[in-house]
């Protein structure tokens, strides 16, 4: 068992010492297995998570903890514990501002331009693994703003689907009451417009709720996944990291089929699809990355 003192030790101290090579091994393992990357400047928090878990599992060194993640029969379970600690606090409104900006300012205008000739100006966006609903409501706020402001999305209608496997999280999403902390990235103006204060908490305003439909969905449920059709944008942040390689590939193939040809797919800010699929191509936006359907694959692929 490590002591509290060693648990609070941080990697990149002010003298600029290089991060511990054992820590980098764990970082690379987590990237290879789960697809979530921690750049050097984020390693302090990453190490805190590792050391916190080391205390729990009784690992005395980072090298020992690496073995625990990589070699032990229980490694899959411990990896999930570590990932839980890493992604804690990710469920907030406007958590990933660069991604939100990319969707509103680049992605949706491009999609809208491609659909301009259609009789109905309508967008379908799916937040897969939406947990307690912060992400779909954030999208709804952005889209309500964009569809009323003069600009490329003015007058467009939209619907947002929030799905999760956890029914309890979904009930909370439907109620739509959040702590002040989870809304700390929301500007005062938007807070005023889209939330009401209730017992020190914030409740999403009535105008937001009809824009988001919540339902329970297991991403590995092949038959139900085929019902999610004609999506313009799919977001699936910090969800695929919990799946093994084969499940991840299966879910990605579903997402591919659910997306319209000009659609976009987004994962979490530090997540990558590298080595998982050839169906999607990485694209860059200011401060964010996303995926489009790879060229010459415009037909619907059958699940193998």
């Amino acid at each position, binding site marked *: 068992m490590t002591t509290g003192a060693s648990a609070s030790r941080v990697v990149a101290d002010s003298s600029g010492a290089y991060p511990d090579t054992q820590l980098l091994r764990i970082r690379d393992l987590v990237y290879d297995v789960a697809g979530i990357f921690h750049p050097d400047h984020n390693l302090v928090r990453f190490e805190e998570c590792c050391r916190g878990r080391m205390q729990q599992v009784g690992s005395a060194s980072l090298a020992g903890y690496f073995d625990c993640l990589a070699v032990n029969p229980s490694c899959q379970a411990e990896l999930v514990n570590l990932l839980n600690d890493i992604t804690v606090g990710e469920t907030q409104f406007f958590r990933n501002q660069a991604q939100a*900006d990319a969707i509103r300012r680049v992605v949706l205008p491009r999609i809208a331009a491609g659909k301009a000739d259609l009789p109905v100006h309508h967008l379908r966006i799916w937040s897969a693994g939406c947990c307690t609903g912060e992400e779909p409501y954030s999208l709804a706020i952005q889209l309500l703003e964009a569809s009323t402001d003069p600009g490329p999305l003015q007058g467009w209608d939209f619907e947002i689907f929030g799905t999760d496997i956890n029914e309890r999280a979904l009930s909370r999403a439907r109620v739509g009451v959040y702590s002040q902390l989870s809304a700390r990235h929301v500007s005062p103006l938007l807070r005023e417009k889209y939330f009401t204060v209730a017992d020190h908490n914030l409740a999403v305003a009535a105008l937001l709720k009809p824009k988001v439909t919540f339902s329970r969905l297991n991403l590995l449920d092949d038959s139900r996944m085929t019902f999610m059709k004609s999506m313009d944008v799919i977001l699936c942040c910090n969800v695929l990291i919990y799946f093994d390689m084969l499940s991840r590939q299966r879910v990605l193939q579903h997402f591919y089929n659910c997306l319209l040809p000009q659609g976009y797919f987004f994962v979490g800010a*530090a997540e*990558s699809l*590298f080595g998982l699929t050839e169906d999607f191509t990485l694209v860059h936006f*200011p401060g964010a990355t996303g995926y*489009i359907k790879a060229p010459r694959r415009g037909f619907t692929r059958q699940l193998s």
Partner: protein
Amino acid sequence: MNPSQPSLLRKLENVDHLPTLPAVLAPLLRYLEQPPENIDLQQVIELISQDKSLTAQCLHMANSPLFGRLQTVDSVRGAVMALGIRHMREIAVSCSVLKLMPSVRSTLDPSVFWVHSFSCALVSQKLAQRIRFYNPEKAYLAGLLHDLGIIAILWLAPDDFCAAFDLARCEEIPLHEAEQRTLGFSHCETGEILAHRWNLAADVSAVVQFHHHPETAPAHRSLVAIVHLADLLCRMRDLGYGYPEQRQINLLESQAHALLIAECPDLAGFDWARFTFELDNYLIEVRSLVAHLHS
């Protein structure tokens, strides 16, 4: 070139008072281009010692906390040992080129310009290393100098440059496109003239001239493509000219990617996502380097 706007370019070609590089820089760079095992430390020291301000800058850098020195360095030999050959080159270039930025007030903050240049240098070099391009050090130098043409425009027509920069920032479009619209030419053309005047190596000149359109480069296309891709990545990752370009970039389908993969097949299995995330590391490193060069 826009036929109605050739006069500025002609002016640049004929102008007598263009900034000049220190005489020692070209021989020093040429010397440092050799394989490391051929480089004689004494020769480097002698070259640097020929230029007083370069010597001072080396000592200043060698004593900065950036290089983690515990003892005071007070000789050129000590500075070269402390900084290492690779840093000698970047300090020599940046010290020489930093002074060329005209002191006119401009909407482009010089430190933003240098953060972009050093980031592009670093990213070009790392990319070159990862895909086993034969000369990563050359990629660094070319990345550092790719935007020389901006300095030329600042000398020649500072007000016009400000108009172009304001347009780029306001419409959130690439700077070279805004230059083309307001000036009728871009920093690629002015850079070419400057690179010729300064007698830069042909491959670095090609990067200066063609880094926005690598497919039009008649030679050195891989090097041009590397700097092109690095430049794009930097601009998408808050290491650009201080404003976001609101657009989508598809590196994998770009002509630069196609050009480069022919010469560096390792690019086929390259993890662009991870490389992009790693870029955020450089921001801190590069900002402190530029801060020290400016201090």
